[in-house]
């Protein structure tokens, strides 16, 4: 047995079924949130600020909105996926099964990323109800979404292993990722900031991710697409290194 496909498929199905139990809130929440953002940001602010860099403001915030939801949802889906068995004690079965760390990650992160991708697409579709958005590079856009979903689900997986309580599970997405996303140009271009703040913003890794995703829509971003891709892949690589270390040492998984 080189690859335990039955195990990967079983975990994947288990996780998708878990999402399925909350399908209504999972998919309705982003639709409502997106609509609210469009009403508040698009209509209220957009009526005063018509364009950002030649793109209508309503359309401009679409990539940022998708990213914001995908970041937080990816982290929470993936972290819950691995935290729950730890919390309930059912992790004993995973640890005693003939499943490699790679297969474990593929299954859990794959399932969480699937849900994040669906969510991103739902938000994208909802946005179409409010504004006219043209995507310059649809394939790249999809590719970027997959990359972002995978990266943030890996990050969430790390948090799920690290967390010792439900509170710790929420700390990173709510207190770190959410503010960084707001400050990372989800709803504005960092060109609009004063020069000093623009320099500070460039230290925020989220800027590169949102900028890259926005580039796939409008052909331009705050930073070059190459840098955005490199930053995303760099983050992905860091997550992979941390996860492999966690499995190697059994960090918070095994005694």
């Amino acid at each position, binding site marked *: *047995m080189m690859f*335990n496909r*039955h*195990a990967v*498929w*079983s*975990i994947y*199905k*288990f996780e998708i*079924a*878990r999402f399925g*139990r909350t399908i209504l809130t999972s998919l309705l929440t982003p639709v409502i949130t997106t609509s609210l953002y469009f009403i508040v940001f698009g209509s209220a602010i957009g009526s005063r600020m018509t364009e950002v860099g030649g793109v209508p403001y309503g359309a401009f915030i679409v990539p940022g909105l998708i990213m914001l939801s995908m970041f937080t949802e990816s982290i929470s889906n993936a972290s819950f996926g691995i935290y729950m068995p730890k919390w*309930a*004690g*059912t992790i*004993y*079965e*995973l*640890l*005693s*099964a*003939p*499943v*490699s760390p790679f297969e474990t990650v593929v299954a859990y992160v794959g399932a969480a990323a699937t849900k994040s991708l669906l969510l991103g697409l739902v938000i994208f579709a909802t946005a179409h109800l409010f504004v006219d958005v043209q995507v310059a590079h649809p394939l790249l856009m999809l590719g970027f979404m997959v990359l972002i979903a995978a990266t943030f689900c890996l990050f969430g997986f790390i948090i799920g292993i690290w967390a010792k309580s439900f509170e710790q599970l929420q700390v990173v997405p709510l207190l770190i990722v959410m503010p960084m996303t707001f400050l990372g140009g989800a709803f504005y271009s960092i060109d609009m900031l004063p020069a000093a703040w623009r320099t500070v913003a460039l230290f925020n890794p989220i800027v590169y991710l949102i900028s890259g995703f926005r580039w796939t829509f409008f052909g331009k971003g705050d930073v070059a697409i190459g840098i955005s891709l490199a930053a995303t892949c760099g983050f992905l690589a860091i997550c992979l290194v941390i996860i492999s270390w966690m499995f190697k040492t*059994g960090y918070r998984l*095994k*005694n």
Partner: protein
Amino acid sequence: MQPIISISNLTKTYKSGHQALKRVDLDIRKGEIFALLGPNGAGKTTMISIICGIVNPSSGTVTADGHDIVRDFRAARTKIGLVPQELHTDSFETVMATVTFSRGLFGKAPHPAHIEKILKDLSLWEKRNTKIQELSGGMKRRVMIAKALSHEPQILFLDEPTAGVDVELRRDMWGLVRELRESGVTIILTTHYIEEAEEMADRIGVITKGELILVEDKSVLMQKLGRKTLTLNLSEPMTTIPAELGEWALTLKADGNELEYVFDTNAERTGIPSLLRRMSDLGIAFKDLNTRQSSLEEIFVNLVHTPAGEAS
């Protein structure tokens, strides 16, 4: 015959500094029922957890059916089923879903007929579409056994399988364990109920303070370490034991109506003929006498309260 599980020099020291296992060596024979006895905190669960891959050993090696549990973990774990002590279940899953999940997790293709057989054997078939959170504790225990058997393991670990379950389930479980043994499955169980080990096990290992102090065939153990008690029903009750009987360790029971004498069956001289002669000389008559073999429980209590060196 090659042992199905071979533990060599196994040591585990937790981060807290607690040494749970101290250089344990043990071979489990294929097809046997092995009972691991020991007081709480003796290292039973640690040992099982290491073999199953839940706890990392500090040093030493373990092979399962010839496969090293670390280097060749896939082959080793595929052979093993584990029913842990605690009831850990996915509350929102149905019985059928969770047992099917376990089979897949252990790398086996779906086999609905096999799952159906297990659920029927464990009286869970009627509950197959019930969510686990709606089941009683005993039923949850059955679900955990069903999960462990879902991938047709050759080695089954039962960690305190009957702790806190009712008489009926315990009887069912014993029946199931015997059936599994007949089908060739090797069973390793830990238990607090000594009568369970006495009833079921082929061999017994006693572990205390992280050391395996004894491994023996049950019958040999009972014979070797067993003591017998001779009870004499006196014709006339006595208030004190006469000084002339001082060389035998006698106790007076039942309001002076019984004399009890505990003796070692393996001793060259049991001291019984001379005791009876002396009693006859003193004119102490008795109506009846009987002897009783000590139970495994008594042997066990004796063992774990004796320093390791002396016990074996």
